[in-house]
């Protein structure tokens, strides 16, 4: 889960997984900001974050990924992925 200067830089990375090729593993920065900026994220400093907000994360993530069209198991993970 890294940031690269561009897709070409990522492809030149010696540890680049060819399975993430054809754009599968890439995400535009603006989309990443949306993915990691869901409502629950805005409450990480709240006193009840762990009990009240963290449990909402999985559903929020799925909703963003669906909106971005990233519905493959590569992005969606297993059902319990937080």
């Amino acid at each position: 889960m890294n940031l690269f200067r561009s897709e070409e830089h990522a492809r030149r990375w010696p540890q680049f997984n060819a399975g993430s090729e054809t754009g599968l593993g890439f995400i535009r920065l603006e989309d990443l900001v949306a993915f990691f900026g869901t409502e629950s994220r805005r409450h990480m400093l709240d006193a009840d974050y762990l009990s009240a907000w963290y449990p909402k994360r999985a559903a929020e993530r799925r909703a963003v990924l669906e909106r971005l069209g990233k519905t493959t198991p590569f992005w969606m993970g297993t059902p319990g992925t937080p």
Partner: protein
Amino acid sequence: MDQMFSRIMRALVETGRAPHYAELARALGLAVPQSRQLLLDVMQAYPIGWLHPDTDYIASFPPLNNLPTQYRVSVGGEQKWFAQCGFEATSVTWLFPGATVRVQAPCLDCGEPVVIEMRDGRLVTVDPPSVVGHLNWGFGPSRGKPPFL
């Protein structure tokens, strides 16, 4: 668990370091062994973070990391934080409301800097403009793979 979670997160924000469970014990009015068990419970409830293997030391407590990473985070010109990974780096902004959060990391390909600045969830600076996120193994299949990839 909420109280301990909040203490850890706020300590990370304020100091750049995660406290040890023995330090948290007094703050939470717990005996030290109780504090250790509560830390283990918190980390189980927040599995996107982790302890350093075979220790009770907090290594990662996303979006921040207690163990330095290449994702250096600066706020107000002061660099004392690290993001867990490039993705979590885009979430650090929510820990510093009203402030400009700068994330700088060397590109893993060429070593040249990747810089983003965010304020209240919005991108302010992206350098170079072609910066992209990359998930190497997938969220499901990544289990068992180094999580930072």
